[in-house]
């Protein structure tokens, strides 16, 4: 399967006063179409920084970020913005800058710069909200809906835009066991149907379990925790171990 997103040996630092702080050190991640890759770590460990680089919202200091055959740092800011609207979709629960009804919020990326009429975009957005069972909140604003409805509204955005890559920042965290499971099921169902790849950051282990591949942050490095994809690719400093059989001959890849 061809690579959808390839983050290769990426480094990123920030300046705190006169001190340079390395947030990402030689980090590599790959996401293929139809794969869900989770990056787990505590707050401030660089998860969101990594996601921003993947979405083209920020640029690397070292290394490369490829979306298909395009290297993001080689693109103009305008071209990267266009990618973010069309081929990449960023999902989180933060209050959006657009103060419009949920229906228009979901429709916006489709209507803006895509030559789709607002009416058509709204109709698609309504369909997506209905499909996720929250058609009733279409006319409400972000501040008026529940945390759970925000998660579903964000996922509705993944349906209407037909993106190739979803970049999900802490969307599934802190929902409680049953909601996390429900959101995970909804996400997997969309991935199976629409075939996009997902790179998501999580803080909770139960939220990570929905992923095909799980990577753990430590001191700016990423360690491969588990790889259940067919190719069993490795991360920067992963130690890949033999397959182990469990229950009815099922197998899982042991990795650390």
């Amino acid at each position, binding site marked *: 399967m061809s690579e959808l997103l390839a983050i290769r040996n990426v480094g990123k630092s920030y300046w705190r006063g006169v001190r340079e702080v390395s947030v990402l050190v030689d980090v590599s991640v790959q996401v293929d179409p139809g794969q869900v890759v989770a990056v787990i770590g505590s707050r401030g460990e660089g998860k969101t920084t990594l996601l921003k680089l993947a979405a083209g919202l920020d640029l690397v200091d070292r290394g490369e970020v490829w979306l298909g055959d395009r290297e993001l740092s080689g693109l103009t800011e305008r071209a990267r913005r266009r990618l973010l609207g069309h081929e990449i979709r960023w999902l989180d629960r933060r209050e959006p800058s657009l103060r419009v009804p949920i229906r228009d919020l979901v429709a916006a990326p489709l209507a803006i710069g895509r030559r789709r009429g607002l009416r058509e975009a709204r109709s698609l957005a309504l369909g997506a909200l209905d499909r996720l069972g929250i058609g009733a909140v279409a006319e409400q604003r972000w501040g008026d809906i529940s945390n759970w409805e925000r998660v579903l509204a964000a996922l509705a955005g993944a349906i209407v835009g037909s993106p190739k890559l979803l970049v999900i920042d802490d969307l599934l965290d802190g929902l409680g066991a049953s909601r996390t499971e429900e959101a995970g099921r909804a996400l997997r169902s969309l991935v199976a149907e629409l075939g996009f790849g997902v790179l998501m950051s999580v803080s909770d282990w139960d939220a990570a379990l929905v992923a095909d591949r799980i990577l*753990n942050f430590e001191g700016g490095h990423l360690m491969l925790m588990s790889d259940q994809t067919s190719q069993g690719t490795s991360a920067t400093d992963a130690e890949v171990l033999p397959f182990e059989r*469990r229950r009815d001959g099922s197998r899982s*890849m042991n990795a650390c």
Partner: protein
Amino acid sequence: MPPSRSAALSARIAVLGIVVQGDGPQTLGNVALRLAEDFGAARFPKNTVHQNLRNLTRGGYLRLVREGAEPSYSLYEAEDKGIEEFMEWLVASEPDPPALRDALQARLSFYTRAVERGDIAGLVEKLRAQQQHCARQFAVAHGNVHLEQAQRREQPGSLNDALYLIRMEDEAELWGNAVERLQKLRLRLERLLTGERSQR
């Protein structure tokens, strides 16, 4: 304060439960196989099945249905006393809070009284190795969750299958949380060492 009871699974109750739940009389081999399949992560000693079958039979919890040519072919069945004991354990509530008998906590406690810099460095290495072991166990449990979830998407499973998935998810989270704890503890100790060095 009432005597503390560990929340840990004992080999005795695991062996008893396997015989009680077994489809007819069980051989030592049957019990050992299920113990390895269902409670492999508990890493009970190899001779634990033999010992517990013998002790449970002596205690009147099991009976020897037929003596085999070799001990591994002998057949065991649960007595009413054994069934009662197991069912009581199954529905009993866990001690609240459970007794904390954590080896890491104990080591830290001993080190608190008399610690050398080398002790901390050694502990850091032990934690690193433990973290890797736990990460491997996490990968195994995540693999089982992944496979079960994929099968459930294909066709809804039985109640047993659903419970198996819940159990695997719980096990994966246990290992994940263990990795996180070991990682945090190690990083704290590493910072302590670095801080000490910078002060020298």
